[in-house]
């Protein structure tokens, strides 16, 4: 009995023709086998699950968004580039956006992408009365486009989106939304379950076969609208390998060619065996969010600044085998929105002690705080030793940290419930880690007054009129350069007021066989696998 869900489709002829016609495929080179950290193949129908890894391997591979991330450079932070929309603009009312849809784009099933297909995809996520509404995709996509009020196809190649309020972050929001084929959904009996086994997007990879929880095989889509993104490989095999030791063993024994997130203590062994460790700055944050409810010791700016000055980030980097970027602010150093904060996030114990003394703390009057931490979790790196390291650092400036350790799934709920909720156990901080790739996920969601938990993820209940003005300005500044200045100003306030315990950023290490050539690791959660070849 075979359980494999084979999805080879009736596009062989088209592929064969394209194979002959396309130089990129004539260079097709090898099979890349990837060991993912996910425990399952990410949702294949369009809007992926499994966080950043899902979008990386099953999102931006099989699908495109109207606006894509530029994944071509390792040297600078990624920006937005035209995807299925070639250009966009906002009207004078600052609410009505017009998108020119790229002409001649085909889905893997041969049907054409146009403005009607885009509307159909928005309905899939937002209109629960539409036939194609999908709870699972909506769960992943709806919260990514909070600005969208309505949308319509003006003609086949013009899409209009109206926002609820002026919101210049709409392009970033749309970079989340991936376009599935309406024709494929129809052909599969209007069943998303059937589509999951045989999906169709416009992306540079076609999902050829799929065994749940075990493997997915992707092959190049020769008809992709951007020839430079047509993969050079013959095939990419995705294998869920959630256990770090199993991932490392699979790489060392030659069962996979590439693993995501090797454990830091295995890296020397991997390097000793000739494997390459590739990493780069990533828009990721590892911080302590601070409780700002009345009575919290973190309401004192001296304490906040002192704690930030007490962290020996270089020491922590050694602990992590060099695989981190020490925080210099809330956003990673080099971010286009970093600005020039006055408060320098460095390691200066004397200055930290002076600030603590100024607030009345000292060896005989120590400060006791409670911190929520998790033993593991998405983007948490090595949370237990890292937090114990911080505990020792803070003890040196008379801050005694008591940990409340909760499992990651519980931690996510606590983060959403907020500091005032009983589940937070009266903690003064929560160690959380996340994606900070766009203005909303990077800055707004953490400190906006209307997103105070449980309405959003402002865990600490921070609310400040000046910050609100900044957030409003981010949303109403439509000129990208001017918007960048507002974002810089906002980040400077984040840092100058030491609104978080700013510790580190991950570098997304991945280990690969020396046979893997041509990979350029973008400063992004998503990556372009099209340039890779196997020696």
């Amino acid at each position, binding site marked *: 009995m*075979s*359980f*494999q*869900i084979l999805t080879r489709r009736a596009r062989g002829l088209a592929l064969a023709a394209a194979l002959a016609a396309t130089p990129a495929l004539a260079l097709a080179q090898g099979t890349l086998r990837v060991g993912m950290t996910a*425990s*399952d193949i990410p*949702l294949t129908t369009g809007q992926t*699950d499994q966080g950043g890894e899902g979008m990386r391997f099953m999102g931006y591979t099989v699908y495109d968004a109207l606006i894509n991330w530029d994944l071509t450079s390792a040297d600078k932070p990624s920006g937005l580039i035209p995807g299925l929309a070639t250009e966009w603009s906002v009207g004078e009312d600052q609410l009505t956006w017009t998108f020119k849809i790229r002409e001649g784009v085909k889905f893997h099933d041969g049907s054409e992408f146009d403005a009607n297909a885009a509307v159909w995809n928005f309905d899939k996520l937002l209109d629960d009365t539409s036939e194609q509404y999908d*709870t*699972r995709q909506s*769960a*992943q996509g*709806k*919260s*990514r486009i*909070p600005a969208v009020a309505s949308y319509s196809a003006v003609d086949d190649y013009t899409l209009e989106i109206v926002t609820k309020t002026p919101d210049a972050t709409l392009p970033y929001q749309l970079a989340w939304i991936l376009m599935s084929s309406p024709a494929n959904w129809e052909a599969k009996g209007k069943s*998303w*379950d059937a589509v*999951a086994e045989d999906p169709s997007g416009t992306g540079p990879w076609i999902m050829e076969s799929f*065994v*749940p*929880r*075990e*493997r997915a095989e992707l092959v190049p889509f020769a008809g992709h609208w951007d020839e430079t993104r047509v993969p050079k490989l013959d095939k990419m095999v995705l*294998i*869920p*390998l*959630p*256990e770090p*030791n*199993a991932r490392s*063993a*699979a790489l*060392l*024994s*030659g*069962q996979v060619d590439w693993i995501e997130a090797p454990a830091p203590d295995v890296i020397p062994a991997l390097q000793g065996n000739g494997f390459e460790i590739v990493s780069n700055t990533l828009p990721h944050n590892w911080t302590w969010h601070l409780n700002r409810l009345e009575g919290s010791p973190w309401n004192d700016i001296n304490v906040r600044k002192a704690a930030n000055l007490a962290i020996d980030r270089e020491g922590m980097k050694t602990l992590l085998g060099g695989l981190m970027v020490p925080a210099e602010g809330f956003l990673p150093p080099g971010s286009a929105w970093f600005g020039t904060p006055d408060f320098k996030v460095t390691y200066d114990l004397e200055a930290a002690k002076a600030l603590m003394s100024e607030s009345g703390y000292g060896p005989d009057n120590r400060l006791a705080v409670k911190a929520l931490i998790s033993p593991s979790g998405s983007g948490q790196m090595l949370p237990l030793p890292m937090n114990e390291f911080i505990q020792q650092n803070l003890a040196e400036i008379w801050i005694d940290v008591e940990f409340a350790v*909760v*499992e990651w*799934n*519980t931690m*996510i*709920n606590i*983060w*959403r419930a907020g500091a005032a909720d009983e*589940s937070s156990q009266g903690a003064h901080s929560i160690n959380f880690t*996340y994606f900070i790739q766009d203005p909303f*996920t990077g800055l707004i*969601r953490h400190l906006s007054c209307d*997103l105070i938990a*449980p*309405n*959003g*993820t402002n865990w600490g209940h921070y609310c400040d009129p000046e910050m609100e003005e900044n957030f409003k300005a981010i949303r109403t500044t439509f000129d990208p350069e001017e918007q960048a200045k507002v974002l810089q100003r906002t980040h400077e306030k984040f840092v100058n007021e030491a609104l978080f315990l700013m510790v580190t950023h991950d570098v997304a290490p991945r280990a690969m066989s020396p046979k893997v050539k041509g990979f350029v690791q973008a400063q992004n959660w998503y990556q372009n696998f099209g340039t890779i070849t196997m020696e």
Partner: protein
Amino acid sequence: MPRPRLRLDMLGYLLRRLVYVVPVAIGVSLICFLLVHIAPGDPLVAVMPIDATAEQEAEMRAAYGFDKPLPVQFGIWLGNAVTGDLGRSIATGRDVATEVTRAVGNTLLLAAAASVIGFPLGLMLGFLAGYLNNTVWDRGITAVAIGGVSTPNYWLGMVLVIIFSVSLGWLPSMGAGPGGSGEWTWDWAHIRHLVLPAVTLAVVPMGIVMRTTRALVADILDQDFVQALEAKGMTRLGILRHVARNAAPTALSVIGLQLGYLLGGSILIETVFNWPGSGYLLSVAILQRDLPTLQGTILVLAMFFVALNLIVDLLQSLIDPRISRA
């Protein structure tokens, strides 16, 4: 000795045991359901971005039926389960019955391989140690048995991977075949994926069966009837046959329990070797609070235990007519 026959009272016993399955199944499901709800965490975490709004969370809670009172949720699940519908996984959206069937099939394969390695070896070595009681051989075999029982099998698995996969490159370290479990065939390309997890999994049951058999054989050899048989001039081989027959019911009972352990207790092994079985499915479902998958998997595994116990009881009666099941 009379030939064992399935009498009417035995048939009645069998029917009674089958009826008992119903309360056991409901009880197991209820306990599992309550445990998952008592534990902190939320199944929706697996299907929503972490920064979803409270409004969206409420919508999703309603869409998945988690806004209903717990007794109603359990009643709905039970009503569907009776018709064979174990629901859909919250985390993957896939049909739980299909997922569990696939995973249990893979676990059965692994358990069968471990049984083939572990039980005959355990029985043979245990018999030998019991027969050579208090000799160097006995002590050596007992040491192996204690070592097998005491060694953490996930540790052993990792050591075997380092030796046979990483250093020697003889056997693969993970997976259920080059194309996944869906393409399983009985050729070396697939069987080699089975070797390391099966050996690792077999070590503990082998040790337990070995120790039990050794104690049984040593005890039986001391009994009066053995001396009587010797006095009658029965050959050593004939006596051992009697010893084996007397030891069989208890050994069978232990093997039955260990088979249950192999089916349900391989979470760590399946994780270490990335073997797509029921243990692996359970561990992922626990981390994701995937209630339907948890419920479905535990129910199916519980039914395996019930069936195994029943089969062992019946086999014991057939082997030893003194054991009445009426």
